[in-house]
């Protein structure tokens, strides 16, 4: 009888392994006690995006020192916004896997409004008392139509223009930031300056890409015009009906026709290499872009860049909020951490680390920001340049599928850069934008 018994044992092992496999597919649960202790701390996961991250490293250290029951891990540094947002959308919809604190970007936050129920209402954790810590428009953009406080503002993307002083000098243009700013009161003047540059310098291009140019002009025009881009406030697509979009598009195609664009796809390897090789002379520069330039151009280009005023009026491009998904096991601790990171102090620290401009009025006036100069950018008074724009800003409403529509329109501009007729591509922009926003 020995053989059958052994075989039965084998069968039992087989069954057991199936059971283990099935069990392994179920999620394991976090058993750490509520509150956490110094010996057995709660781990809070913070999800951010972008090559430079959010510049929170020092803040984490400080927070962990003050709260020995908390341990913080960050994910997402180096991840592009598109990939980050795809992952986050899936995690939020599934109700699992997202961090305890997640970053929502300007172009994507509206997309999460229908899923408000999947996020903690930060008003329940005393966020309403912090309202005065944020620029009013920034605060309002983080609150859903039904009054839920979805996210607390981190930074704003107030605009300027970054330029290479060495290339300007070689082309016979002024290099002092006041004089450079005076070259271009309007975008048409900017293009005219570019033509002068192109005449003197055949090797380098004046602008990195049509798409960055376009986004800057669009956000600025919309901020001072209709206050909306591809969607109106009822989330209806208005690409063809919004004169601001057409204005920005036409200026961009005019810039391309003048031969000023380096035709580099933004955030691509070639674009990154363009910073290193110094293949273009200017780039539209929201505050967060200074961190990108420094990261991509590297130490070799230190002191070669400077920052001038953007043509036209003030505008905003980019900026984020921090939210706490319902899936967090420690919502109170997570909300406290989000409040800490978005506090005036937290925003000032992030500005010092990666140049993200505070969305807190007190933060903008903080001497560490207002008086800040950036050695990398030839000692430019970054705080003064950006803060001046931030306070004048009027908000722009971006609809739920803003990023998809924006990509569709940007692609038609890339086609113009590749030599396709502008009028034909504008029709493609309308058609593809409409399809992407459906």
């Amino acid at each position, binding site marked *: *009888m020995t*053989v*059958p018994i052994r*075989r*039965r044992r*084998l*069968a039992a092992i*087989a*069954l057991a*392994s*199936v059971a283990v*496999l*099935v069990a392994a*597919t179920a999620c394991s649960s976090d058993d750490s006690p509520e509150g956490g202790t110094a010996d057995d701390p709660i781990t809070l996961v913070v999800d951010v995006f972008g090559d430079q991250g959010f510049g929170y490293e020092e803040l984490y250290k400080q927070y962990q020192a003050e709260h020995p029951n908390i341990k913080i891990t960050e994910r997402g540094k180096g991840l*592009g916004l*598109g990939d980050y947002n*795809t992952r986050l*959308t899936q995690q*939020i*919809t599934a109700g699992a896997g997202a961090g305890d604190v997640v970053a929502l970007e300007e172009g994507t936050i509206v*997309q999460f409004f*229908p*899923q408000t129920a999947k996020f903690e209402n930060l008003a329940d954790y005393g966020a309403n008392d912090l309202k005065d810590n944020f620029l009013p428009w920034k605060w309002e953009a983080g609150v859903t139509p039904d009054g839920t406080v979805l996210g607390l503002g981190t930074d704003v993307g107030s605009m300027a223009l970054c330029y290479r002083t060495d290339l300007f000098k070689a082309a016979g243009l002024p290099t002092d930031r006041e004089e450079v700013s005076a070259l271009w009161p309007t975008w048409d003047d900017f293009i005219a300056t570019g033509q002068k540059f192109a005449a003197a310098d055949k090797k380098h291009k004046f602008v990195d890409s049509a*798409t960055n140019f376009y986004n800057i002009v669009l956000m600025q025009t919309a901020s001072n015009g209709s206050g909306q881009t591809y969607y109106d406030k009822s989330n209806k697509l208005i690409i063809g009906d919004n004169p601001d979009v057409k204005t920005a598009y036409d200026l961009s195609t005019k810039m391309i026709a003048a031969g000023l664009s380096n*035709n580099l*796809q*933004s*955030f*691509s*390897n*070639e*674009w990154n290499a363009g910073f290193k090789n110094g*293949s273009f002379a200017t780039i539209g520069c929201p505050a967060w872009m200074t961190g990108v330039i420094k990261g991509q151009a590297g130490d070799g280009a230190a002191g070669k860049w400077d920052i001038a005023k953007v043509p036209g009026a003030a505008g905003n491009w980019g900026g984020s909020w921090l939210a706490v998904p319902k899936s967090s096991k420690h919502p109170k601790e997570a909300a406290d951490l989000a409040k800490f990171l978005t506090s005036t102090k937290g925003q000032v620290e992030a500005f010092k680390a990666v140049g993200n401009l505070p969305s807190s009025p007190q933060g903008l006036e903080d001497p560490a920001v207002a008086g800040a100069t950036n050695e990398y950018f030839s000692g430019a008074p970054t705080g003064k340049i950006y803060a001046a724009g931030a306070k004048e800003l009027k908000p722009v409403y971006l609809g*739920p*599928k803003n*990023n*998809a529509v924006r*990509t*569709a329109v*940007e*692609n*038609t501009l*890339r*086609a113009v*850069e*590749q*030599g*396709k007729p502008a009028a034909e591509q504008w029709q*493609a922009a309308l058609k*593809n934008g409409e*399809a*992407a*926003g*459906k």
Partner: protein
Amino acid sequence: MSLPIDTAAPPGPSRPPATPAAHRRRQTGRTLNRLDLRYTPYVFVLPFFVIFAIFGVYPIVYTFWIALTDRSPLNATISFVGLDNFVELLTNDPQFWNAVTNTFGMFVLSTVPQLLLALLLANALNRRIRGQMFFRLAIAMPIITSTAVVALIFSMIYAREFGLVNWLLDLVGIDPIDWRAGRFASWFAISTMVDWRWIGYNALIYLAAMQSINKDVYEAAALDGASRRRQFWSITIPQLRPTIIFTLIISTIGGLQLFTEPLMFTSGAGAIAGGSEGQFQTITMYLLDVMNQRFRWGYAGAVALMLFLLIAVFSFINYLLARRISSDK
């Protein structure tokens, strides 16, 4: 290990006396044993099917269901829309048909040279040549290289500025080509990536099949005065027919699901769009575009099912075509 199949216990000198209790015990043992014999094999194969059910059947069934809805993270509720997604896909979605054209274009442009070159390569390696082992190993190298790395290196080779290909073209006095701008240029570049990676794989399969062809047939043909070329077309190819059908079907499945190469061909924002005008956006890229950029999950389900249908149809057509190879000989 040899197991007694029909008897529970072998007869032996130590056989217990046949009391009624022992008899009953033996009876139960026999029943259990029979159950064991009948069902144990199923238990052994169960793990595969459990995993297949979780990761295979469930997603497929769910895709059918979701394709009939307007599911999206942007909708607070899910509503049943019947066949609306399919109707829109077939009648009112030029971007989908653009992706279908691109996929088939690149499929033809890559698969035909790929299989032909693999066949010739295998034939060459099948002869007695110096360094046979080295060459056989060398053609296998691309297979163990990560697709992402291949795509990254090729996207640098085909870079608009400072790219190797454009530099070579410049040497012979041809203007540089923007490989991502034109439809045919991008198809060509992506096809070379696919071929570089898969020629060796197919050549190995052909080589293995060639070595199992009986040498006597070749000897007889040689005695009758058949040239090497004649031997190749009249003996090797017909004998390889099942293998060719296999590689064709595998290439069809792979070609119609082409994804990493065209995606990695551009980097940066909006790479999933496959070029400024979608010149090289494949069906799988469009699927992810719809799903992750536009958040139309129901519609993405419909795209996935259409892709499934296309692959099934084209595998069948290829099978019919390949079956005709020398079937009259």
